[in-house]
């Protein structure tokens, strides 16, 4: 297996070198192509300026900021409970997951902890956001590579998860459900059984995607050996989540830090892939969805009884201090560095989003690839514009 990939990589490098030699001989003139800000592959308004030589990228520069909303500034004029409404909109496909690290940071500063039931429900909803987010990624990946069918299957099965999230929180996209000290509400009745059924469906969806996309020869040709990011480079650029694990770095914030979430109570596995190419990134995400369904299933069995809200004052004042809490969000490491000066709202919030770092590697990884591979690599890095632009 590895021989094959090495051979593909070598072949690719040789082809690129041959092209480069030819271009030097012919002195062909380059062309500057603006991919975006309105382009289907940038799903949002990312603009990538690429300098092309034929169809080969000589130089690429992503230009973000078309959707910069200034959340770091806005948090400075909000109270702590109000901030969750804002940060919901950062990674809009995995909203609930955005709330958790901020709430955890505030709780850490206040020295309180959510009751066990709230922790488990938080973890379940966190994983459901991951499933809905990454599930859509799997379908979107097909579209980026020209296969139209997977995206419809992804939207179909994501709907089940969104219904669950809606059932529990009342919001499909922006739940705003997490509170300092716990959760807004308990789960509705019947939710647990329905979730179990949906998880079964989603495992079927994963199998389907594996058959339809990952086992496809054309898909493998398009993604294997494309956009290889070695582990060292990935860490230097701060790539996180599946992008880092696809480079063989065994690092998952769900497992590797002590947070008041229920991950340590369940049996699950962190998947890594040694290749670091586009295929590896997609494949790791597929496995992550599977693992998430398993985590949710186990947590549903574990669900303790009790309150979902700790005793917190009605008007929340967070004591002076600083805290950085990051969690393993669908897109990667999302963290909030919260500086409190003992007021009603934070003094400064530094939002560390995953996509910002994940996309900052684009100038490095796009150099020398072909235009179709630009799309593959961008798709496999998986970014969400709100997550880059904050």
């Amino acid at each position, binding site marked *: 297996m590895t021989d094959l990939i090495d051979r593909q990589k070598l072949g690719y490098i040789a082809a690129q070198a041959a092209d480069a030699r030819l271009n030097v001989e012919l002195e062909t003139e380059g062309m500057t192509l603006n991919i975006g800000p309105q382009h289907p592959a940038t799903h949002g308004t990312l603009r990538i300026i690429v300098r092309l030589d034929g169809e080969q990228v000589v130089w690429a520069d992503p*230009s973000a900021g078309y959707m910069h909303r200034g959340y770091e500034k806005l948090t400075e004029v909000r109270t702590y409970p109000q901030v969750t409404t804002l940060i919901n909109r950062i990674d809009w496909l995995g909203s609930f997951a955005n709330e958790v690290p901020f709430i955890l940071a505030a709780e850490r500063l206040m020295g309180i902890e959510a009751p066990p039931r709230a922790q488990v429900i938080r973890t379940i909803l966190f994983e459901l956001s991951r499933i809905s987010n990454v599930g859509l990624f799997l379908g979107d990946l097909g579209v980026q590579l020209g296969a139209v069918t997977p995206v419809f299957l992804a939207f179909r099965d994501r709907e089940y998860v969104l219904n669950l999230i809606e059932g529990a929180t009342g919001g499909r996209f922006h739940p705003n459900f997490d509170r300092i000290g716990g959760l807004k509400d308990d789960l509705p009745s019947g939710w647990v059984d329905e979730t179990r059924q949906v998880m079964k469906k989603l495992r079927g969806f994963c199998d389907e995607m594996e058959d339809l996309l990952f086992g496809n020869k054309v898909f493998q040709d398009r993604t294997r050996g494309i956009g290889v990011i070695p582990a060292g480079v990935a860490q*230097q*650029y701060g790539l996180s989540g599946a992008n880092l694990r696809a480079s*063989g770095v065994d690092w998952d914030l769900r497992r590797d830090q002590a947070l008041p979430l229920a991950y340590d109570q369940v049996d699950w596995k962190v998947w890594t892939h040694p290749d670091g190419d586009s295929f590896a990134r997609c494949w790791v995400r597929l496995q992550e969805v599977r693992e998430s369904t398993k985590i949710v299933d186990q947590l549903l069995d574990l669900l303790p009884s009790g309150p979902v809200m700790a005793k917190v004052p009605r008007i929340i004042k967070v004591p002076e201090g600083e805290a950085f809490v990051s969690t393993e969000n669908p897109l990667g490491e999302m*963290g909030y*560095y919260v500086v409190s000066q003992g007021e009603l709202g934070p003094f400064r919030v*530094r939002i560390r989003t995953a996509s910002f770092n994940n996309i900052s590697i684009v100038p490095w990884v796009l150099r020398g690839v072909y235009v179709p591979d630009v799309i593959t690599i961008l798709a496999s890095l998986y970014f969400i514009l709100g997550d880059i632009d904050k």
Partner: protein
Amino acid sequence: MVPLSDTTETETPALASDTLREGIVDRLRTTLGDAVVEVHLEPNVDLWVRVRHDAWRETGLALRDQGFHYFCFLSAIDWQPSPFGRGEDDPSAPAPEPDDPAAEPEMRHGVTGGDTRFQVFARVTDVQRHVGITIKADVPDDSSVVDSWVTVYAGANWHERETHEMFGIGFAGHPDLRNIYLPTDFEGHPLRKDFPLLARIVKPWPGIADVEPLPGEGDEGDGGASE
């Protein structure tokens, strides 16, 4: 069937301990000497180290050599309290005396203290030992420039660009300090505390604590009028 990938099977590793964090600080002290100004260790939680600004880049190098290969983020803090408050005041109320020295609150620096208005701070992680560390450095008030980390952590590139446009802090040695979010001709540095958030100045936030009357509690509810 050929498996689609090899996977690594690792045992669940131990989480970071405080002895590990102390060891990191000790090694930093031996490498950097007296450039380590202040250390704050929150037991079993996190570690902060403040270094002198001229040792900013060396700190990065030293940490990288210690195994902190993973670059998390880099940014800055403006410790000056906002002259505009939190935007919760009534704009029609008379403004406080601007040149009253007593009205200007002093800067309260965070966990590792500080002397200057701006501090840069960065976080790096060791993914093998599962420990993160936050580094802070005062930015000199007169020049507002620190060394760039781009040559230490390539990912610092964009973060420094962002910090530059948001705070006006320069990074010596950065190859391309353009704006990343803001238009090129944007004036001002939005995340500085003295940069007004116009939306808030024009129209203040209606309520600090969001204490709304519950249904049936208040007299002025719309529901009562319609019934």
